[in-house]
C-alpha cells in the first residue's frame, strides 16, 4: 500500500470511530447538566433583583427551558446539526460567537505550552539518556520529579512573584498591554511577553513527563539491533541519535502528547484564572458559576472535539513516523 493511501485509510477509520464518541459526549453532557439545581432563568432573575413568576415563565419559554427534557435534547441536537450551539441568556449572544472569541486565546496558550513541553522535554530527555546514570542524568531527574509534583497554579503564582513582583520583568496577567497602539512585530513581541509565564506554568508538568518518557524510550531504542547495525556501518553519532534513535523514540511521545490534550485544557482552566488570561477555561469557569448551560455544553463539546481532532492528527503523524502503523489492520 502506498504511503498516502495508507494515511488516507487511517483518516477514514479515525473519522468513523469518532462519530459515536461525539454523540455520546453530547448526550452525556446534556443529561449531566439537567441534574444541576437551578437553571439560567433563576440566575437571570437573581441578577435582575426582582422577578415575578410570570417573568420567570416568560424567560423559560423564550429559551425553551420549560419543554420536556427529551424535547430540549432534540432541540439541542437539531441546532447542532445546523452548527448552531444555541444562545447564551447570560451573555446575551450566540454561544458559538462567545466561544469563538475565547478559543484562540486558549489554543495559543495550549500550543505555546505544548511546544515548550515537547521541545524542552525531548531535549532534556535526550541529555538524560546520553548521560544515563551520570551526574547530568541525576540532576535532571530530580528536577523532573519536582516539576512533576508541583501544582500548575502554584508554580504560576511563584513565577508571578519572582518575575513580576520582585524582578518586574514580565507582566502578571492579561494577554496584551491594554490600550497599546503597537502593530506588527512589536505587537507580537508584546503578546509574547504576556504568554511566557502562563505557558511556562502550564508546560512544566508535561515537560517533566516528556523528559522521563524520552529518556526511557531512547534507552530502549538504543539497544535495538538496527541501531547497532547503523553504528557498525559508520553512521555519525549525531545522525545516529537524531535519525535512528530519536525518531523512533518520538512515537510514544506523540501518543502521550495526544492523550495530554484534555489534560492541557483542564490545566488551562486553572492557569487562566491565575493569569486572568481571556480564554475558554476562564469562560467555562464563569459559565459554571453563572449556571449558563448552553455555554457550558458548547465548551465541553468543543473541547472534546479539539481532543478528538488532535488525536486523529496524532494517529496520522504516527502513521507517517512509523510505516508499520496502520498497515496490518
Amino acid at each position, binding site marked *: 500500500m502506498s504511503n498516502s493511501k495508507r494515511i488516507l485509510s487511517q483518516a477514514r477509520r479515525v473519522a468513523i470511530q469518532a462519530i459515536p464518541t461525539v454523540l455520546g459526549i453530547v448526550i452525556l453532557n446534556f443529561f449531566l447538566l439537567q441534574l444541576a439545581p437551578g437553571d439560567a432563568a433563576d440566575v437571570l432573575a437573581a441578577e435582575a433583583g426582582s422577578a415575578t413568576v410570570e417573568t420567570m415563565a416568560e424567560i423559560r419559554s423564550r429559551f425553551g427551558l420549560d419543554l420536556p427534557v427529551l424535547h430540549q435534547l432534540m432541540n439541542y441536537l437539531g441546532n447542532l446539526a445546523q452548527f448552531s450551539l444555541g444562545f447564551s441568556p447570560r451573555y446575551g449572544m450566540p454561544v458559538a460567537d462567545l466561544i469563538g472569541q475565547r478559543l484562540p486565546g486558549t489554543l495559543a496558550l495550549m500550543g505555546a505550552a505544548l511546544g515548550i513541553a515537547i521541545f524542552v522535554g525531548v531535549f532534556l530527555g535526550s541529555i538524560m539518556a546520553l548521560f544515563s546514570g551520570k551526574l547530568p542524568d541525576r540532576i535532571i531527574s530530580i528536577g523532573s520529579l519536582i516539576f512533576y509534583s*508541583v501544582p500548575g497554579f502554584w508554580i504560576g503564582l511563584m513565577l508571578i512573584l519572582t518575575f513580576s513582583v520582585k524582578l518586574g520583568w514580565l507582566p502578571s496577567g492579561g494577554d496584551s498591554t491594554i490600550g497599546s497602539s503597537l502593530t506588527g512585530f512589536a505587537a507580537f513581541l508584546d503578546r509574547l511577553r504576556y504568554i511566557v509565564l502562563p505557558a511556562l506554568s502550564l508546560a512544566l508538568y508535561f515537560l517533566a513527563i516528556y523528559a522521563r518518557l524520552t529518556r526511557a524510550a531512547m534507552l530502549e531504542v538504543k539497544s535495538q539491533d538496527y541501531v547497532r547495525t547503523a553504528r557498525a556501518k559508520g553512521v555519525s553519532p549525531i545522525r545516529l541519535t537524531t535519525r535512528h534513535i530519536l525518531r523512533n523514540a518520538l512515537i510514544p511521545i506523540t501518543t502521550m502528547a495526544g492523550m495530554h490534550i*484534555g*489534560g492541557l485544557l483542564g490545566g488551562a482552566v486553572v492557569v487562566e484564572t491565575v493569569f486572568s488570561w481571556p480564554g475558554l477555561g476562564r469562560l467555562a469557569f464563569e459559565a459554571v458559576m453563572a449556571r449558563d448551560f448552553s455555554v457550558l455544553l458548547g465548551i465541553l463539546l468543543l473541547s472534546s472535539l479539539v481532543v478528538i481532532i488532535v488525536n486523529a492528527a496524532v494517529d496520522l503523524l504516527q502513521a507517517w513516523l512509523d510505516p508499520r502503523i496502520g498497515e496490518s489492520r
Partner: protein
Amino acid sequence: MNSSHTTAVLNTAELGAEETNPKPKKPEEKAWPYIHAPDALSARSVSVPRRGLRRELKIFLTNPNAIVGLLFLATVIVTALIAPLIYPGDPLEMVARPFLWPGQNAAYPLGTDSMGRDVLAGIVHGARISLTVGVVATLIGLTIGIAVGAFAGYFGGVIDDILVKLIEIFQTLPNFVLLVVLVAIAQPSVTTVTSAIGIITWPLVARLTRAEFRATREKDYVLAARSLGYGHARIVFQEILPNALPPIIVTSSVMVAGAILMEAALSFMGLGDPNRVSWGSMIGSGRDVIRTAWYLTALPGLAIVFTVISLNLISDGLNDALNPRFSEERR
C-alpha cells in the same frame, strides 16, 4: 533482565515442588480419581504469593528513593493524625494579629494570614483534608475502574464494545473541566469533591484492568480454573485479579498524588469545601496579597509539593519492584 529471569525460573521450580508434595498426603478426601488437580491448586494459592511478595518488598525497601518517599509520606500522615491534638481549635478562627511574618512571633512559627489565622494550624489541618480526599477518591476510582475493566476484559463481546466506548467518552472529555462541572452541580463539600475526583479517574483504571484481563483471560491457569468448573466470580477475583494487580498498585499511588493536586486546584478556584481549611484554599486566599505577604502563598504550596513528591517517589519504587522489566530500562 537476567536476574528477573532466574527468579522466575526458581519460582516455577518451587511451584512444581509444592504441586507434587501434597499428592500422597490426603488421598482419602474424595473418591474421585482426578483429585490431585484441585489439591495442587489450593496448595499453590497458599504458599507462592507470600514468597513472591517478600522478594518485591525487599526490592522496594532497598530502593533509597522509595525510602525517602515513605519517610516523607509518614511525616504527612503523622501530622494529619496528630493535628487535632496539637491544634485542637478551629484552624479557621482568628488567633492573633493579621500578617505576622514567619518567625516574628514564636507562638505562630509560620505566621498569620490576612484574617489573623495561624498558618501552621491551617497547614497541619489541611493535611487531613488532602490525604482523606486523595485516598478515598482513589479507592472510589479503583473500585469503579476495576469493576468495569474486569467486566469488559473478562466477558468481551458486545459488553466490552459498549464499555470501551464509555471509557473512551470519559477519556475524551477534558478531565478537569468535567470535574469543575460535577463539583459545581453537586455543590462543593468534601464528599462531593471526593466522589467527583473518583468519578473522573476511573476510566484510567478501567483501561488498565481491561488490558490485563484480556492478556490473562486465555492463559493456561485460567483455562485450568475454568475446566475445573470454577464460577466466573472465583476466576475473576482469585485467578486473574491477583495477577493484574501490580500495574494497578503502581497506578494507584500516582492516582492519590493526582487527586491531591486536583483537590488543591479546585479549592484554589473556590470550589472546595468552604467550611474546611485546605492547602488549595489557603493559596487561593493568599493570592490576593501576594505582593505584600508572599509566604501565605508559598508555604501551603510547599506542603502540597512535599506530599506529592513523596507519593511519586513511592510509585517509582513500586514500579521498579513490581515491573522488573521496566526497571532495567530505567536504570
